[in-house]
C-alpha cells in the first residue's frame, strides 16, 4: 500500500522526524488558508500516487497565498499517470543548503533490509546509481540485531557529514528504520531530505510503501487513513477484490492464464508471433468455473481488448472447471470478442469434452494458441 506524501509525513512526525510546516488542502480555498498559516513562500504539491509528478507539472512554488490558490486550482484538476490528483500539500519552501537522499528498502539477494543514503539527493536514485554510483552509501541491516544508532551515524559519516550533523542525520536514519520496523515498510524514501542554510534537516518529501501482505497487522493505520488503496483504476480494483493478478498493457490481446510465470510466457509468445498483449490476468491456483467467468468479464472491460487467449496448465486447477466457466461466460453473452482456448493437465479430457459439446474450439499447445489469437486479431482489424 502506497501512502500519500502527507500520510507518510504524519507518520514521520509521530516519530519526531522534522518536516516542513504546512498541511493538506482538498480545495483551492483550503490551499490559500494553508499558505496563509505558513506565512512564507510555499510549495504546492500534487498528492498522487505516481512518480515524476514534478516533471508532469504537479509541483509549483508560490510566493503568496493567492498564488498558492491559483496553483492548487491548476494542480487539483490534473491527472498524473492516468490517476486523479486527490489533494495538494502546501508546505513552507525551505532555504536549501543541500539536498540529500535517504531511503530503506529490501535487498532481495541479501534477503535483508538495506539503508541507502547519498549526499547528492534530489534526483532519482536510479539516475544517481547510473551517474555517480560512488555517491550512494548502502548498509545492510543485521536481521537479528536490527539497525543500530551507531550504524545510522556511520551512514552520515560515509555520506561526508561532520560534527553535530553526524548525530542529526544519523537520528533521521534511525527514525526511518523504526518506522520501517513498526509498519512493515517495504520501501521508504526521503528525496530530498533537505539541509537548510541554518543547519537543520527536514524531510521535504516522503515515500512510504507498506507491504500489502502485512496490512492485517496495521488495521489501526488503515482505519486512520480512512481509505482503500487508491492507485488503481476500476478494473484493477475489481481484479484485486477477486484476488487476481491483473496488469494492463498497450496491446489488444487479453491473456487469461493460471500462474504468473505462465501468464508472462503467454504474453511473450504472443509477441513472438507478432501480436501485442493488452492484459496480464493470472487467475491464481485452483480457479473454479465462476472465477474463470469473472476473469473473462474483467478482461473484457478494458476497451483495448480485441481478442482473448485463455491458457491453462491444469495442476490444482481442473480443466473441466475452466471449460464450464468459459461456457457460462459464453451462454451469458459475456464474450464480446474472439476467444482462443488452450487447456491441458488435470481433467483435460473432461474439459475438452465440455468445450467440444458446446462447439467451442480449443488447442493443445500454447504456441498454436498464441499464433492463432494473433491471426484472429489481424482479421478483426
Amino acid at each position: 500500500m502506497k501512502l500519500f506524501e502527507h500520510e507518510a509525513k504524519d507518520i514521520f512526525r509521530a516519530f519526531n522526524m522534522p518536516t516542513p510546516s504546512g498541511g493538506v488542502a482538498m480545495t483551492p480555498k483550503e490551499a490559500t488558508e494553508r499558505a496563509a498559516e505558513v506565512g512564507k513562500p510555499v510549495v504546492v504539491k500534487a498528492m498522487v500516487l505516481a512518480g515524476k509528478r514534478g516533471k508532469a507539472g504537479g509541483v509549483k512554488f508560490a510566493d503568496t497565498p493567492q498564488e498558492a490558490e491559483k496553483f492548487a486550482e491548476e494542480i487539483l484538476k490534473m491527472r498524473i499517470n492516468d490517476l486523479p490528483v486527490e489533494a495538494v500539500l502546501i508546505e513552507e519552501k525551505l532555504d536549501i543548503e543541500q539536498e540529500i537522499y535517504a531511503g530503506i528498502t529490501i535487498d532481495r539477494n541479501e534477503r535483508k533490509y538495506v539503508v541507502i543514503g547519498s549526499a547528492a539527493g534530489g534526483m532519482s536514485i536510479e539516475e544517481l546509481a547510473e551517474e555517480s554510483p560512488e555517491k550512494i552509501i548502502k548498509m545492510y541491516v543485521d536481521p537479528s540485531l536490527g539497525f543500530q544508532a551507531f550504524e545510522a551515524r556511520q551512514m552520515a559519516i560515509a555520506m561526508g557529514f561532520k560534527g553535530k550533523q553526524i548525530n542529526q542525520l544519523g537520528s533521521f536514519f534511525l527514525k526511518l528504520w523504526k518506522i520501517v520496523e513498526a509498519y512493515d515498510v517495504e520501501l521508504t524514501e526521503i528525496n530530498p531530505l533537505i539541509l537548510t542554510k541554518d543547519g537543520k534537516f527536514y524531510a521535504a518529501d516522503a515515500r512510504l510503501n507498506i507491504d500489502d501482505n502485512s496490512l492485517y497487522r496495521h488495521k489501526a493505520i488503515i482505519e486512520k487513513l480512512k481509505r482503500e488503496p487508491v492507485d488503481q483504476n476500476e478494473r484493477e480494483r475489481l481484479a484485486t477484490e477477486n484476488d487476481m493478478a491483473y496488469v494492463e498493457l498497450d496491446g489488444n490481446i487479453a491473456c487469461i492464464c493460471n500462474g504468473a510465470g505462465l501468464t508472462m510466457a503467454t504474453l511473450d509468445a504472443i509477441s513472438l508471433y507478432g501480436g501485442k498483449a493488452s492484459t496480464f490476468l493470472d487467475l491464481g491456483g485452483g480457479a473454479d468455473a465462476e472465477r474463470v467467468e469473472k476473469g473473462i468479464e474483467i478482461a473484457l472491460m478494458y476497451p483495448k481488448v480485441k481478442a482473448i487467449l485463455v491458457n491453462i496448465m491444469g495442476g490444482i486447477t481442473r480443466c473441466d472447471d475452466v471449460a464450464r466457466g468459459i461456457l457460462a461466460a459464453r451462454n451469458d453473452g459475456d464474450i464480446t470478442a474472439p476467444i482462443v482456448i488452450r487447456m491441458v493437465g488435470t481433467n483435460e479430457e473432461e474439459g475438452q469434452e465440455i468445450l467440444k459439446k458446446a462447439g467451442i474450439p480449443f488447442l493443445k499447445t500454447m504456441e498454436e494458441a498464441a499464433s492463432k489469437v494473433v491471426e484472429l486479431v489481424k482479421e478483426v482489424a
Partner: protein
Amino acid sequence: MAILVDKDTKVIVQGITGGQGTFHSGAMLEYGTKIVAGVTPGKAGEVINGVPVYDSVIEAKESQGANASIIFVPAPFAGDAALEAIAADLNPVVVITEHVPVKDEIRVIHAAKVKGITVIGPNTPGVITPGAKQKVGIMPGHVFSHGDVGLMSRSGTLTYEIAAGMTNAGIGISTALGLGGDPCVGLTTIEAVKLFKEDKDTKALVLVGEIGGDAEERAAAFIKKEYDLPVVGFIAGRTAPPGKRMGHAGAIISGSSGTAAAKIKALTEAGVAVADKPSDVARLLKEAL
C-alpha cells in the same frame, strides 16, 4: 540420488487440517510421499488421510521421526510455523503459503541460515524427485518423469508446462524445484545450481527464470565459472513493462534492472542455451545432451 528430497525424506505437514493441507497431503500420499505426521495446534489426535495430527512440530518429530516439513498454514501464521520447523531442525522446510509478509520471510530465512537449514519458498510449488516418487509440494506429479535433468524455476505452472514438454520429449527429471515467486525466498537460484552441481545424478540443468531482481544473472556468473554440464534456460516476461508487478511479488522490473533482456544476455554469455518459448526447452536439451 537427487537433491533436497529423496526416498529417506519423512515429511511433516504443518496446517494439515486446513483445506489446502488436507487436499495436498492426500495428493502427496497418493504420489508416494512419506508423510509421517501432520501438525495443527489444538488438533492433536485427529487423523487426516491416515496421518496422525500433533499439536506441535517437536511432538510430531519426536513421535514419528520426521526430517522435513511442508507448510500450508495461512500467511499470518506461516512465519511462526516455519520458525517452529527450523527450531525442530527439520530440513528442508518448504513454505507453500503465498502472501507471507516480507519482514517475516527475512526473519525465517535468517533463522534458517544460522542453523544451516534450507527453506524453500515461500510462495513455491515445492520440490519433487520423481525417481524416489517423493514430492514435497503441490505440483501435479504425473507431468514429471524420472531422469537426470535438474529443473529449477521461480514459477509454478510454467514449470509444469516445461516439465510436461520434457516428459513428452522423453527427457526425465532428477529433481524439480520451485524457488518461489516472492522477492525474498530461502533457497536462491545460485544456491540451487550449487546443490545440483554436487548431485552426481544430475547431468544437465533447466533454469526457468523471470523478470525481477538479478538472481539469474548471479546464477549465470556462477555457471560460467563453475558449472560444466549443459544448461538450458528460459526467462518469462520479455514483454513485461517496467514498474508493474507481473503476478508474483518478485516479478517486477525496477528502472533498468530485472529485465528479461539482461538475464538472457547473462545466461547466453555463460553458455546457457536460452529458449524463446517453453516448448523449445526440450529441443535445446536434446541438442545439448
